[in-house]
């Protein structure tokens, strides 16, 4: 019998996927329903915005560890 599962399909790079899986495992697997392949995962529809926010937090932290790139100059006036 064919089954239909409601959810949100997330398409991303393999690197981002690794981060998402990591976030998921640190939060009692409350986001991800299933990992479909290298670049796709199925996420609970209600949790997707929360997951996105967590991803932003995580990537911000990572950015800070790198050297901050020079800001676009505002020297003109």
């Amino acid at each position, binding site marked *: *019998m*064919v*089954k*239909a*599962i*409601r*959810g*949100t*399909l*997330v*398409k*991303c*790079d393999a690197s*981002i996927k690794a981060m*998402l899986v990591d976030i998921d495992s640190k939060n009692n697997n409350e986001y991800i329903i*299933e990992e*479909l*392949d290298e670049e*796709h995962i*199925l*996420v609970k*529809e209600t949790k*997707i915005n929360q997951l*996105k926010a967590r*991803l932003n937090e995580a*990537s911000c932290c990572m950015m800070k560890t790198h050297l901050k790139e020079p*800001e*676009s100059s*505002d020297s*003109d*006036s």
Partner: protein
Amino acid sequence: MSASSSIQALEYLQGLPLQTHRKLYEAPSTVLAVFRCMLPHLAKSIVMAMLYMPSALPAADLEAWFKPSARREREQALSILDRLHILTSKREDDRSLSYSLSQGFQRSLRQAIEGSGTHRTFGVPATKAERREEKLGIDFLDQHARTQWEGILFFMVSGAAGFAPGSVKMDVGPGTKQLLHKGDLVRTVHETPKITKEGFTFVLQETNAQVWNLLIVYLRMGHELGMSETEVLSFLFMLGSLELGQDYSTSTLSDTQLQMLDDLSAMGIVYRSSKDSRTFYPTRLATTLTSDSGALPGTDISTNEKTDSKAQNKGFIIVETNYRLYAYTNSLIQIAILSLFTKLQHRFPNLVSGKLTKESVHRAVQSGITSAQIISYLTTYAHPQMQKSNPPLPPTVMDQIRLWEYEGERVEVTTGYLMREFGSEVEYRDVQGYAEALGVLVWKNDAERCFFVSHVEQISAYLKKKKEGRGGR
């Protein structure tokens, strides 16, 4: 253009139940509007061909109209007609499938085309006695429509653009404000309206799409307030068929529709000289609802306008390869919209200048504007000098905006359904092929025999039909 603007309306219509559709199709003006602006061309051809058919059309005959290679197009057209309950399919005694137009739709469309019947759904022009005053000019109506509509847009962007509340005159009624909140286009934070993701998308749309967008929110809200969906919708479709510059009598309207008149005049979609006036004028926002012509109360209207209007500013932005941006405008809405994704630096009487920076684009992306929207906005309003080159924007700038977006937003999401556990390879192939033909297939994995679709209703209907067909054999 018209396709994008009526798409939300189409989606809303598709979601309505059969009974509502039946009632809607009793009004010829509604049927004509649905036919004119909701249906794709192929579906129109099918409807036209079947309009005067005396009996049902066998499915085999219908299929003979299409080349075998056009299965996808055929399925799409038929599925829209089916979802709108325009086309009904029936199994004949010998198990063959046959199609016919639904009765009400057929009758009303015939009436609309022939001008027969006494339905009065195309509006009743006001009599001299009802009018009591001079007829208003088109200029005045356009002016009214634009003031009201720009007021709404400005109300939405003013918070984000950093204007203090009350610093600029905004003529937005409490009803409209409530509507914007209900549609989640703005949220009030600390007394200031704050624009949301959806709001951004809304502001950057063309006017016709904006009007539909807001009207659909209105429809949903009206439903909660106990207004009849059918009456609201058929009134909207009727407005679309009215003539600009003509005044119409309110005597044939129901209570719900009179109530709507008040709300719509606050948005500038209709005009009434006073609350208890017995006539109303549709504005350009209303009359272009169901047509292809531009609804922008600016493009063709303000050729004779001298105030700060959109049309006059058509093509006013210059972007240089060093990300500097100059906009020849003094319209506060324009400036407010620009400030959503630009770092504005100077303002002169007829010019603002600024710069597209990483931070400004990031900020925009985070609040939900996509790079595509920014680029299309800048391209649409590029200065005539820039329009001469192709593409109008410097390619480096476009690429950089996309890259900046990619930094901020790295996942692509689609809501829908994952289909799996198919009995056989053949079944999987068949259903997946159907999903692809419908255009709802998002992702598939042949090895695992599963795929992802954005809409499931028709797939399940298809599966059910298949099962029945097999069971009967």
